[in-house]
């Protein structure tokens, strides 16, 4: 069972439908007790909205989230749900979860902000069959909507980048934490493939 955390920011129909489509068993959890009761094999933090609002609404989940991550449960953060895994953001004074070392900063001027649309991935390493990006190739397109981007302290956690004015980390992975800036649930076949890989990872 994959718990999708509903923190009151936008509808979760797309991510729920997408996970179900690729063979997952998603359940939407709207408070920390439901998350505890869910006995989740994996957790997804979806994302729309701003960093400050997201952290305010996610804070009640934090103890349980830390427990799950510590016990090795796979976590997938999407867009804002990924940015909150870092330490801090220029968008807000609120502190992030700090599960990944690094900051979230605004996309520099010179390009249209937000970045909205399909952009290409550049892979930093060769994928194995069991990886989140298994079957994804250099130059595959994914759907991005964001004004801020993540700068991990440790370059080694960057799995793929995308170029939008600057070269930015698009996919970050550290142990059981997986974090994507784009919306796989809005990225058609290739996006579904990433979610399928995540679902498979959970089953292993």
């Amino acid at each position: 069972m994959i718990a999708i955390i509903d923190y009151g920011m936008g509808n979760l129909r797309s991510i729920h439908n997408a996970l179900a489509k690729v063979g997952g068993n998603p359940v939407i959890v709207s408070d920390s007790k439901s998350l505890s009761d869910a006995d989740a094999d994996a957790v997804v933090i979806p994302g729309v909205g701003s960093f400050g609002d997201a952290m305010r609404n996610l804070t009640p989940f934090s103890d349980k989230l830390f427990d799950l991550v510590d016990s090795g449960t796979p976590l997938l953060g999407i867009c804002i749900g990924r940015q909150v895994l870092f330490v801090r953001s220029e968008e807000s004074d609120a502190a992030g979860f700090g599960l990944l070392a690094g900051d979230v900063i605004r996309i520099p001027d010179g390009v249209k902000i937000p970045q909205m649309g399909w952009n290409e991935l550049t892979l930093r390493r060769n994928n194995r069959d069991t990886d989140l990006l298994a079957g994804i190739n250099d130059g595959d397109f994914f759907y991005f909507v964001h004004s801020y981007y993540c700068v991990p302290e440790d370059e080694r956690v960057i799995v793929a980048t995308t170029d939008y004015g600057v070269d930015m980390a698009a996919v970050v992975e550290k142990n059981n934490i997986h974090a994507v800036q784009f919306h796989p649930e809005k990225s058609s076949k290739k996006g579904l493939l990433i979610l399928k890989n995540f679902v498979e990872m959970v089953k292993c």
Partner: protein
Amino acid sequence: MLAKRIIPCLDCDLGVPHGRVVKGVQFKQIRYAGIPWELAEEYDRQGADELIFLDITASHERRETMAKVIEKTSENVFMPLTVGGGIRAIADARTAFNSGADKVSVNTAALKNPGLINDIAKYFGNQACVLAIDAKRRYGREPGREMVDTPDGECWFECSFYGGREFTGIDAIQWAIEAEERGAGDIMLTSMDRDGTKDGFDIELTAAVSDSVNIPVIASGGCGNPEHILEVLRDTNASAALAASIFHFGEYTVGEVKEYLRKGGVHVRM
């Protein structure tokens, strides 16, 4: 590098059960194109980057029918979905988002109450608010207007509302700039002079608006073939092009159009 987007537009007649996609030819003859979610799935297979569903009946009672169309579509189609037509208030927007839409487009209601743009942006994010502008050329210099040179002479562009039936006196370029300040995330810019003609996009209009704002502009109105799309994406700063009938009636697939654009030097998602 960010790709230019190709967006099929589904004009939905929601006066029949489950709705149907139609296309008017110069506002008269209506041709039946198919069932909305079936067309949506076909465009997904063809490689469309985004879909726009416009309720051409735009009536309050039909809101639930559109919600059903989007719910059904979002079961199998995983790309950005925009809903427009009849979005008058935050409650209408919420219904659309809860059914699976990612963005709503507003036109008439925003012209009558510009604060609606701020409200949608505040509650659902800038990316969720598309401002639709239906613009018509007005030749001859007028004080206070953004004048644009065209091969047919100097003109300004007037916004219309109520589906092109009434004019507002509002300058389309100035309105686009104001909409960006209010938090719109995209401008869907339709040329009323070209809509339904298949004579090509209004290049001067698209260039003028896309050079005046820093948010993406979706060029719309007049697409008759892939060359028209190449022209507007190559010669203006538009981020996307919208077309309906060339896709609905099987004249071209989205894939064929993208292949043509790629060969023409436009960066598209293949």
